[in-house]
Structure formats: C-alpha cells, structure tokens
C-alpha cells in the first residue's frame, strides 16, 4: 500500500516502478561469481595467524618452521608492514600485532602458500609466545582507574555530552518520571559471504577485489599501510554477499596487498565463518540509563539519556555511532528539554563497529520502552502518548533544537499503523488465543538521519559517458553492497534523461572508474549517490540543449556531436545540504554532533504469541509504515523493510553474541542463533511517501530505520500479552520466562 502527498504527475516512466535487482537472476541461479570465489592463474592462498587470548602481550614469534613448510611462499610479520597502524576514525589498531594483544583473534602473521591446506598447516606452525593479561570485559569496570589500560590514553575512547534546557528542573516538575536502565547485547551481521578477496601487485600497482562498502576508504587504508599513493591502489568491490556495516572497515585488503607484494603473485584470502565471528565488528552493546519525564496528559517534558557503550578493543566507528545515538536518544518525539551523555569504552570484548541502525536501535529500545512504562503509570494509552508527542516537520529536534525538515512523515506513518487491521483488531485477536499461547500487540517508532549529517561535507560523485551510438554509461557513487541501489540509480538516470530504464548502464564499486563517493552506509546511497547521478544527467541534458537538436532527441547524433566537441564525458558531484535552521546550535556544535537535515522514520506494529509455560515467543505479524520520501524503487524499499524487520526481530528475540572474560562463547551459527524461515512472520509494508526536496525525485534513505522499531514493537507486544516489561535484550525464552515468574510471585 502507498499513501502520501506526492502528486501523481511526478511519478514518471521509471521512478516509482518496482524493479528487480539488476543481478537478481545471476544471484538466484548461482551464475554470479562472488569475489571470494575468484581464481586467478598462479594464485597463492593466504592465511592469517591469530592469537587465542583476548588480552596480553606478544613476547615471542618464530616463523622459521613455517617458512620451511611445503608450499610456503611467504610469511610476513609486523616488521614487514610499512606503516603498522590503522583505524577509520582513530588510528589505534596495528595491522599485525607487534606487542599488545587486545582481542582474541588479533593477527600476528600472514602466510601465503601454494594451496590453502599448505597455508593452514604453515599458519599452525608459526610459533607464538604470549603473556596473558587479565581481560577487561565490563565497560563499567573498564573505567575504574585500577583496570588495565587497553590504550595509552586510557579506556575512555570518547565522551559526548549535550543538554538542551534544564533537565533536572523539568524532571522535578514532571507528573511521572520513568527512571530505568536498559541493556542491549552485541549482534553479529552474519553476512552470507564472509570477508575476503583477491589481490594482485604488478608494476607497482595494486589491484584488490574485495567486498567493501567503501572502496575509496579501503583504497586509503591500503595506501596508508603500504606507504604508497592512493592512485597506486585500485579497489574493485562488487558483487558482495551482504554487508550491513560489517564491510566498511577491517584489515583484509591490507593483508592482500602485503602478501601480493611479497609474493609477486595473485593471492586470495577467504575468512572462515569462525574468523568473522571472532574478530569481525559487532553491534555495540549498550547500557542505557533513561529518565523520562511526562506531564499528566502524557506530554514529554524531559528526556535524560546516559549511554555506556562497549566499544571493544579498537575504535572502529564507535565515535560516529555514539553521535547518532545521541541524536536519536529522544526518538521521533518533541521535547524542549533533553540531555545525552554517551561514553564509548575500550574492552577486550567484540569490536563494536558499523551495523545497520548505527547506534539507533539501542536508544530507541530505551525511549520506546520508557514511554510504555510512563503511559502505564499515567493510565494512558502508550500509542496515544507517542502520537501526541510525535515530531512534525518544522519542529525543533528534541535534543539539539535544529529544525526538522519538511519531508518528515512520522505522524502519518503512525496513523497508517494505527489504522492497520493488526492494530485495529488486536483485542478480538487476543480473545481468540488458544492452548498455551497468550497473544499481544505492540507498536514501535523510530527515526534516523539520511547521510553522514551536517558539517561532514557529505558528497558523492557520478561520471557519465554518452557513446557515439547514444549509449549511456554511468559510473555511480556508493556501491551496491547487496542493496540493489544500482537499479535505483538507473531509474533516476532514465527519468532525468527521458530514456528507457534498459538504456542505462550503471557501473559501481571500482575506484579506478567511480568518483570518490563515500560509503554505502548511513542510509545515504540513493539519497546522496542518486542525487549525483541526477546531477550528471542534468548536465548532459544541458549540453544536449546547447546543441540545439530538435525533439525527439537523436541520441546517437547527440553522442557523436558531443564527442566531437570533447564533451561526451560528464563529471558531477552532489553535496548533501546541511541543516538549514540550526536553532540554538552553534557552528562548533554542528561539527561535534553532525545533526541531520533529513530524517526517515518508520512505525511498526507487531502481533505475537507467547507460550505461557515456556516464555517462547512466536511473532505472527509485523507491519511497517516507512516514511521513505518518494519510493524510487518500491520493490527495493519493501525488500529493505522486510530484511530490516527480520534483522530487528533477530536482535529482539535471539541474537546474542556472548563473551566470557573477552572470549567469544557464540563463535559459530550453532550457538549464535539468527532467525530461520520458520521464525519469520507475515510481513506488510506501507510506503508513506512525501517529496524530499534535496533527494533524487524526492527520495530519502530508509535501509536502516526499518530495523529499529521491531524490537520496541515486540517488547510492547510482550507487555500487552503478559504485563511484563523487558528491559534487557534479547527477549529470549529464558528472559521472558523469568520475568513472567517474577511477575507472578
């Protein structure tokens, strides 16, 4: 279903039509060659030697035996790395360990051999002498001055603080104050294709085929570590078997470059599932202390949020994640008074990094559940409390006070969900419960910014070539990390040029050909990259206009004449606009907090059944109304929404990456459970459209926000069914059983 205030005439020939992913048939038939399957002549196989303790010192490393093993071509250690330090935000991570070990699985050496078996045997023959240190596994204890320091500057990686208005006075005057602590757990991305790739070094140039959400960033990582110019490194990064934030940073491209240079042969590394589980990034675990003040009518008078974030051993994207948590800590709600204190802390647990939602799900679970509790104490309906406080276009943002842009449609999304049969008929459905199953229904809401945020210079490029036969090729920005954004790029180009979708050839994910465009992340690919495509197409149309051709345009003639004039290649850049009305924020605040001009939002209803004897939860239906701007490719939006709900459902109910003293306890998919087809409910997506003036054909980015309301909606449904309030995720059978037992006692 589509609702909204978009005029029908703006729907054009391509935009607004459901298009399949451009590689869908190849994926479905197995014809697609993933980069980790790539084979080159004379290729050697790389293997990473890793330590098996979470914290300690490397005191001895002997590669003599490994070098003498059959088939071994190279063994590299820290001294072979020209610049042995890396990190996307903070350079705090050695490429290969030269002293301190901070994570189980930290790499100490690289092996290349003729076969994978020989590489594995040689890796096992590398002799490593370790001196273990006590693991720092509790973020609160990590802040204790007596705790071992993981980095020179101490264990506090970052602290972010902002207050708007006088929170303590507002809370003191509130009719009720909900004062609760919420806990969320680490989540693993579980990409179907684990990390890895193929690297080649010839004539001083590196070519690396690797699944990365940010080819330009990976190029920077490699050029820095190897001490070469970025132009000496070419990253080719599609196709990709899933990303979700797992493939924005990480050392594998550097490993490939080091081994390719040392062996002067093509080299392939494919991470095992266990390596990814042990050493890959995770969704950050949060401890969120929320104080929510409501007046007697349910109006929000203040929200105070204190978030303690387990960043793990290295910074990765933690500082950026913390910013997004702060910005979304007041949810899609109005308030004039709010504060946020966030602290990201180093530990020896899993490495917190980028993960779809990027710091929003943790604080959304807290504010949504606090509203549930506040409404209960006031005797009000929680959904009515949400509605009366919902942010509207032109409102000042709850924490920062900047003005929310005109395309925001959270209220309309909430209305759509309140009108959905699964909400409307919830009491009747509840009465029909039978056997061991109790029934409940709940609603969750969330917002998330589109793009990197203000003050970040968020931009993307596009390069367009028209051939002398009139053909159109566009090398477009943020690459296709499994999202199918290339289809939407083609739709935008087709309609800007007035040509059929099939005429447009889109190429993504190659630093040699695609202009620097930032990452496929931050719900920005279509919003920023699609705008760059549109800008390039408009420039081509302007050049064709100057030729004075008569309509209908003869594209081949246009191509020939532009080629003759040396104008057949168009380069364009789109810079995402910053917040227009900063409200009380200063220019320095903009840089510090990166508030967003454009937000997407989503509201979901979940209907669930709970086994009264065991605490098991079966989700029967989730409907999502998504405030997506104009849906350029409705099939893409629905696909993203359904995938987001499933990932959110997994986080809500079962996914739980556990550590004991820094040692992973759930390092395979036997113990780390994700939803199977049997756990996935009936799904329904409602597109709530509006025209975002700064997006291509009115589009916004929604691929993250659709994940966020699922956990709060399920938690509200659990409350509806049983009266218990889940304050710690996941809501596993044991957790729900325990709450029900406590409530009965």
């Amino acid at each position, binding site marked *: 279903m589509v609702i909204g205030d978009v005029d029908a005439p703006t729907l054009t020939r391509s935009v607004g039509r459901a298009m399949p992913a451009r590689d869908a048939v190849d994926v479905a038939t197995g014809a697609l060659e993933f980069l980790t399957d790539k084979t080159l002549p004379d290729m050697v196989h790389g293997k990473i030697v890793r330590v098996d303790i979470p914290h300690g010192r490397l005191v001895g490393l002997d590669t003599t035996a490994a070098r003498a093993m059959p088939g071994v071509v190279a063994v590299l250690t820290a001294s072979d790395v020209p610049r042995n330090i890396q990190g996307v935000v903070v350079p705090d991570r050695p490429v290969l360990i030269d002293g301190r070990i901070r994570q189980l699985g930290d790499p100490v050496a690289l092996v290349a051999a003729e076969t994978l078996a020989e590489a594995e045997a040689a890796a096992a023959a590398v002799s490593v002498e370790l001196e273990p240190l006590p693991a720092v596994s509790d973020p609160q204890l990590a802040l204790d001055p007596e705790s071992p320091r993981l980095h020179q500057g101490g264990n506090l990686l970052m602290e972010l603080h902002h207050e708007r208005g006088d929170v303590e006075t507002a809370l003191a005057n509130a009719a009720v104050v909900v004062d609760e602590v919420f806990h969320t757990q680490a989540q693993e991305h579980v990409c179907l294709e684990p990390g890895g790739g193929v690297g080649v070094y010839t004539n001083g140039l590196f070519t690396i085929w690797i699944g990365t959400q940010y080819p330009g960033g990976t190029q920077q990582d490699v050029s820095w570590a190897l001490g070469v110019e970025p132009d000496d490194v070419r990253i080719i990064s599609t196709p990709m078997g899933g990303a979700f934030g797992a493939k924005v940073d990480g050392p594998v491209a550097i490993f490939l470059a080091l081994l390719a240079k040392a062996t002067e042969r093509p080299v392939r590394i494919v991470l095992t599932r266990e390596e990814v589980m042990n050493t890959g990034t995770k969704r950050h675990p949060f401890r969120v202390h929320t104080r929510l003040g409501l007046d007697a009518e349910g109006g929000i008078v203040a929200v105070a949020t204190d978030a303690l974030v387990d960043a793990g051993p290295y910074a990765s994207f933690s500082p950026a994640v913390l910013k997004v948590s702060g910005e979304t800590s007041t949810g899609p709600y109005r308030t004039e008074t709010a504060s946020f204190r966030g602290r990201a802390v180093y530990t020896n647990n899993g490495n917190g990094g980028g993960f779809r939602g990027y710091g929003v799900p943790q604080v959304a679970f807290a504010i949504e559940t606090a509203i549930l509790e506040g409404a209960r104490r006031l005797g009000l309906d929680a959904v009515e409390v949400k509605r009366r406080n919902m942010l509207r276009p032109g409102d000042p943002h709850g924490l920062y006070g900047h003005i929310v842009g005109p395309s925001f449609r959270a209220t309309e999304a909430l209305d759509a969900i309140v009108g959905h049969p699964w909400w409307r008929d919830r009491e009747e459905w509840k009465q029909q419960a039978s056997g061991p199953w109790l029934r409940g229904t709940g609603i969750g809401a969330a917002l998330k910014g589109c793009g990197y945020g203000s003050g970040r210079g968020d931009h993307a490029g596009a390069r367009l070539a028209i051939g002398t036969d009139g053909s159109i090729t566009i090398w477009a920005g943020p690459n296709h990390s499994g999202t199918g954004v290339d289809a939407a790029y083609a739709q935008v180009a087709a309609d800007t040029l007035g040509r059929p979708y099939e005429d447009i050839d889109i190429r993504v994910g190659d630093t040699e050909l695609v202009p620097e465009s930032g990452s496929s992340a931050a719900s920005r690919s279509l919003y920023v990259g699609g705008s760059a495509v549109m800008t390039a197409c408009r420039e081509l149309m302007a050049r064709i206009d100057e030729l004075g051709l008569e309509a209908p345009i003869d594209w081949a003639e246009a191509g020939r004449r532009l080629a003759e004039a040396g104008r057949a290649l168009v380069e364009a850049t789109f810079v995402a606009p910053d917040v227009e009305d900063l409200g009380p924020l200063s220019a320095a605040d903009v840089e510090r907090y990166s508030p967003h001009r454009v937000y997407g939002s989503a509201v979901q209803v979940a209907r669930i059944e709970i086994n009264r004897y065991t605490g098991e939860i079966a989700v029967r239906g989730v409907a999502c109304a998504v405030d997506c701007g104009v849906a350029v490719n409705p099939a893409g939006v629905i696909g993203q929404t359904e995938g987001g709900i499933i990932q959110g459902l997994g986080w809500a109910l079962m996914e739980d990456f556990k550590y004991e003293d820094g040692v992973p306890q759930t390092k395979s998919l036997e113990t780390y*459970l994700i939803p*199977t087809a049997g756990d996935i409910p009936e799904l329904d997506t409602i597109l709530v459209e509006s025209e975002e003036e700064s997006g291509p054909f009115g589009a916004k980015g929604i691929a993250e926000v659709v994940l966020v309301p699922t956990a709060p909606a399920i938690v509200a449904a659990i409350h509806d069914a049983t009266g218990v309030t889940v304050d710690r995720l996941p809501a596993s059978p*044991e957790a729900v059983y325990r709450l029900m037992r406590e409530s009965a006692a």
Partner: protein
Amino acid sequence: MVELATPTTIEELRALAGSGRLIAGGTDILVQMRDGRDEPSLIDVSNIADGAPAVVITAGVAELSAMAPISAIVSGLAGRLPAVAASARLFGSLQIRNRATFGGNLANASPAADMVPPLVAAAAHVVVEGPGGSRQVPVAELATGPGRTALGPDEWISLIRVPLPEGEDGFLKLGGRSAMAISIVSLAWRWSRDEDGALRGVRLALGAVAPTVVRAPGAEAALEGRAPSDDVVVAAVEALRGDIAPIDDVRASAWYRREVAGDLLREALET
C-alpha cells in the same frame, strides 16, 4: 587426511566394522571434524543397499531402520508414532532430516538428541549388530554419557523397535528458535487414561537435562494411577524438577532448564 570406506552391502560393512568411525548422514560428525575433531578413518553406511526397509509394522511394534534418513522414516510411519513424528518435525531442518538417521542420532549420544526422548518414553529397543551376531539393547541404556555409548567399536545399530502407543504420546521441544536449534529442554511422554481419567503406564523422558536422555521416575510415580488434578500436576511438576540434573551452558541456565522442564510437563498435561 581422512580415509573413507563406502560399503554397499551389510556383508561389506561387517567386514569393515571396527576399522573406523561409522558415518551416515554426517550432519553432526562433519561439523565436529571442521571444529577440530580427529577422525582418521570413516565408514560411510549411507550407500548400503540391502539394509532394512525404512519402516516395518508388525504386531504392535514399529521396526525402524537405523540407516534410513529421518524424513523417510516419518513418511513411512504415516502418523503411527505421534511423538516420534512431532520430534522429527522439530529435528534440524528438512535438509538435515533428509540426511540424518536415527542410528546416527542414537550413536552420537548427545544429551540433547531430539529423536531419543520419544524412543525412551516408548520403551524402545535397538538391535545392535556385531561380529558375534546381534543383540537387543533398551534405548534408555544405549547412551552412557555425552558422546559415549554401550556400543563396541565394531558394533552398529541396525534397527529400532518401537512399541506402538496404546494410549497417548507426545513430544515438546524448547529451543532458542522455531527450527534448527539444539534443545534447551525436550520432553516426551506416554500414558493411557482409564475410565475415571487416571493416568496409567506413565513414562516420561527428557533431553538436555542430564548427561544422557533420562526418565523422570519421581514425576512418573506422582502421576501414575492419578487423574491430573491441579494438586497432582503441581506434585508431578515439583517431582520432575527433582528428577533432573541440568547444567548451565551458553544456551540456557540450569535454573531455567530445571524450572521450565516442569512447565513443559504442565503444558503436556493441560493442553
């Protein structure tokens, strides 16, 4: 390197028995080998053509092939052993059920093995073949600890003999998700009801609450000969919690296993 023998007849298997680890569907052992378990020599029994048919029904007993895939056994049973069918429905995934066998699930001797509790509750026996001929062993006595069985190194399980239920039977599994999950607790039961509602011939078996699948003698005694009134159910639930010795692991706490096992019995009795 792993040596693999692929006998195609029982005679060939008999000649090879003892020279390596038996493997049928391999749905567990191959995963364990990937995890580092050393098995230098495997004997794959999945190509044996002259084994028993998947299911033979004779005089109140279902004879199940130990080497047939679980999915073939369930379709062959056509609903005759409801608890076994219920357990099979929750066993792994369809792909795993198309590979995995009863024999493998029994010989693997996991405390959480899903196919075992219904067999223990049914007082089933296995037929064990070896150099000295065949012998019959109660399923309840086959596993001696996690991963350990009463089988000799040159013995194999050929058949499972399961008495058909005279009254009711059933199976409940609690896992971390609806499919493809190792049990947190599982419960199988058999009983009959006489005219005044009293339960007779009560047999309960639980998975994942002790080193092997176990009976619950206290709970059985609390139910035997009694109609499941509220008081009787409460007493049986408490007795069952005392019958078992669960542990903490990454899937659940011992506390939850002990408590919820009682509630599974409650669910079995009340719904």
